[in-house]
């Protein structure tokens, strides 16, 4: 918290005054009613939580494998996740969405997951990446489907953002597979356990 001596930053005023329908400045259209607002906020909250968690997972992996041969590869994937997170931070701030209260939990558990799978070696880290990215892609796909079903025109920009992020996550997934994720002993067990955890995390972050 920085109350000491902080002064107000400049905020865009045009959006507040004039942009009440889909606005060139914002990715998310202004909600028409309480229900839509609730749905959008839930969606954005869980996406933000997901990117935050993914960030922490890569951070954990880098902490262990940062100086190994796979270091640069993990760093590259982490940088892309950082971009995703900053985009969602922007969207959340713009739309005054409450971030999930479980962020400290995802902070800790993401780091622990990344670090512990990286301790199993490069294959472990890749297996974790594959599992998580598959869960996230599936989640983004279901969001894309929901938005397309309700009103594709209205949500064009948001759909674009989610599709782009989904494609990036699929790339990470494929990279993980390319780098011998499946050769880890106990791959199926680990993968399913992680995916179950991800599903639980998504379920909870939507509500809390």
């Amino acid at each position, binding site marked *: *918290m*920085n*109350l*000491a*001596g*902080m*002064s*107000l*930053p*400049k*905020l865009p*005023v045009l959006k*507040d*005054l004039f942009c*009440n*329908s889909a606005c060139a400045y914002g990715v998310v259209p*202004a*909600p028409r*009613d*309480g229900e839509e*607002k609730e749905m959008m906020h839930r969606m954005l909250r869980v996406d*933000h939580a997901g990117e935050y968690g993914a960030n922490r997972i890569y951070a954990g992996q880098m902490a262990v494998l940062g*100086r*190994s*041969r796979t270091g640069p590869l993990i760093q590259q994937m982490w940088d892309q996740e950082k971009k995703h997170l900053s985009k*969602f*931070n922007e969207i*959340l*701030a713009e739309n*005054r969405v*409450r*971030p999930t*209260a479980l*962020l*400290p939990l995802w902070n800790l558990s993401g780091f622990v997951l990344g670090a512990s799978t990286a301790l199993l070696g*490069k294959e472990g880290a890749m297996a974790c990446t594959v599992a998580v990215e598959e869960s996230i892609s599936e989640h983004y796909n279901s969001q894309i489907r929901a938005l397309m079903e309700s009103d594709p025109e209205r949500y064009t920009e948001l759909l674009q953002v989610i599709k782009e992020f989904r494609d990036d996550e699929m790339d990470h997934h494929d990279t993980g597979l390319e780098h011998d994720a499946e050769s880890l002993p106990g791959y199926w067990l680990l993968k399913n356990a992680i995916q179950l955890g991800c599903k639980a995390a998504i379920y909870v972050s939507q509500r809390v």
Partner: protein
Amino acid sequence: MAALLRGLRAGRLLRGLSSGKTVVAAPTSTTLQCSSLRRGFHCAALRLKDESKSEKHSASSSYSSSSSSSTTHDAYTSQQDSDPSSGDQEQDEEYETEEQLQARILTAALEFVPLHGWSMEAISAGAEAVGLSSASTGMFTNGAGDLVLHFISQCNSNLTEILAEQHNQVQLGQVEPKKTADFLRDAVETRLRMYIPYMESWPQAMSILLLPHNIPDSLKHLSTMVDDIWYYAGDRSTDMNWYTKRAVLTGLYNSTELVMLQDSSPDFQDTWTFLDNRIQDVTNMAVTAKQMQLTGEAVAQGLMGAAVTLKNLTGLNQKR
């Protein structure tokens, strides 16, 4: 005779409309206000034609002044009530929605609170003031709770308007941006000053808000207000700071409100002094928290150094 009445009504209506508030930029309710004003014009036009609705004509002059507060009230209540706005379109040819009517009655009832307290009597007096029979209070199932919640929501909308106006002035460069601590102090003071006319009966209002069935609504109003204040103070955090800042401001606001209840100094000077001191405390706490964070980071770095040393010793740190 009928023509004379129509002329009188038209005159009163025009005067009412010209004195109505102009659209103020509040974040999400501008289109809502615009469309309701249009509906208001349409309603007014139809009322001129309709002689039989005699009980509504006295409402036309008060309609414009309460329409802006009722529409912003709608913007807040649309989240709570599931009353669909499509109902408005069907009904607006003949009369306003029930929500708007309720808002109008409650606004009028506020005049009578110093006399009757926060009670059904005040609401009945308000209903009579807008020209309806006092039996119409039957639609207020929550009784005095409805009145208090309506007042709170009205105060919140006023606060949001004031903050948005200040924000615009800052954007236009007319006014220097305030420091966060000053901004919070001014916002809380402005908001609490709205209670001054009702100060004698405010303890009664607070106890009504603490009734179990009113708690969810009053908490919602409180959290919306705190969120608004922080938004205009420039908070764009998307991590745990979001929660800590709002918790701090809620504590600040509630404690100052309680002090205000028992304050008998001129113009509540003691309350504002209390507020200043609490804000100072919070600022100090923030500085301390920052220092603790830095210390924590230094400790973490120390631990990392120890971990790296261990890894070196055990040979885990070699390039594979």
